[in-house]
């Protein structure tokens, strides 16, 4: 299974996501990237992230994304 950092790198190859704790504040992801990321995560992990979870706090860094995936039943 692809690591989250790898998936993020495919969406925005110009950034080092492992070096940031706040992707939004650092300008590494915007609202539109978030939509792409949700679709990619759904497809990669065979889940459907609920609309209520699609909020910036859940996509702040790799840790929060992993926590979201666990909440959606993904075993990492």
């Amino acid at each position: 299974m692809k690591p989250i950092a790898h998936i993020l790198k495919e969406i925005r190859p110009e950034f080092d996501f492992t070096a940031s704790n706040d992707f939004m504040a650092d300008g590494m992801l915007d609202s539109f990237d978030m939509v792409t990321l949700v679709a990619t995560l759904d497809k990669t992990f065979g889940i459907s992230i609920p609309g209520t979870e699609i909020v910036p706090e859940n996509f702040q860094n790799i840790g929060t994304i992993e926590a979201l995936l666990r909440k959606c039943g993904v075993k990492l």
Partner: protein
Amino acid sequence: MIPAPAIGGVFDAIQQVKAGAPAFCTNFFPVQRKLLEWVEHGELLVENRGDAAFFLRQDRDFWHFYFCARDVAALRREITALADIKARRLTTDLVGSEDALRDIIGALTLAGFRPYARLQRMTRAGGPTAPSASTDDAAVTWAEQGDGPAVLALLEAGFDHIADQLPLLREIEAAITARQILAVKIDGTLAAVLFFETQGFTSSVRYWAVAAPFRSRRLGAVLMRRYLESHSTVRRFTLWVVADNRNAIEKYRHYGYEPDGLVDHVLVNELIAE
């Protein structure tokens, strides 16, 4: 529709629609700072219809229309019951890939919207700028507080206020304070501006304009070069351009920008003329 009393109410309306939504769809991605500003100025109206929530934001003599819905079917159903659709001059932006937007455009078209413009996003990776040929960028300065009305006049003369989401004077003045507007003045007259927004490692050109009497003097090139050179830590540069504006697209390509597949369909209702 009623004025949004507080931003909490706006978020509540969105959350209610999102809860359990099978295929949530929206064109409302407000930055909290701007949302607060719209609510404070009484510029935001809201109507929560259960399966969908609708928002209108006042801008000059028309309104921006936003929605969030459980799915496209809910959008199609609820939008037809919205009285404001027929009563106000409306424009709406739908941003995404062409495939993802098709059904939403269909739903809005059924409600009386029609295509007005199509914009595409262009992106440039951070990196060195090619050396300047023969430009003297000594004239580039930051716009000053007193320049606000001249900046606004320049933007209103050069852009379509329906398609290009032009800023209000207060937004221009805030941008001047935040040093987001580079300018060239000739004999005290504002000749050209480049208005940008930077967030961390990403920077976006919002407007780049040269006043008609000062064109063909490479002032735009001077501004763009200064902008790119002064953002050496930025990793991604973005901008939006009208998709059939070949001249502008070629200029942006010259500076390394390329279309990245994201498009913005601007639709208007029947109260806005061709």
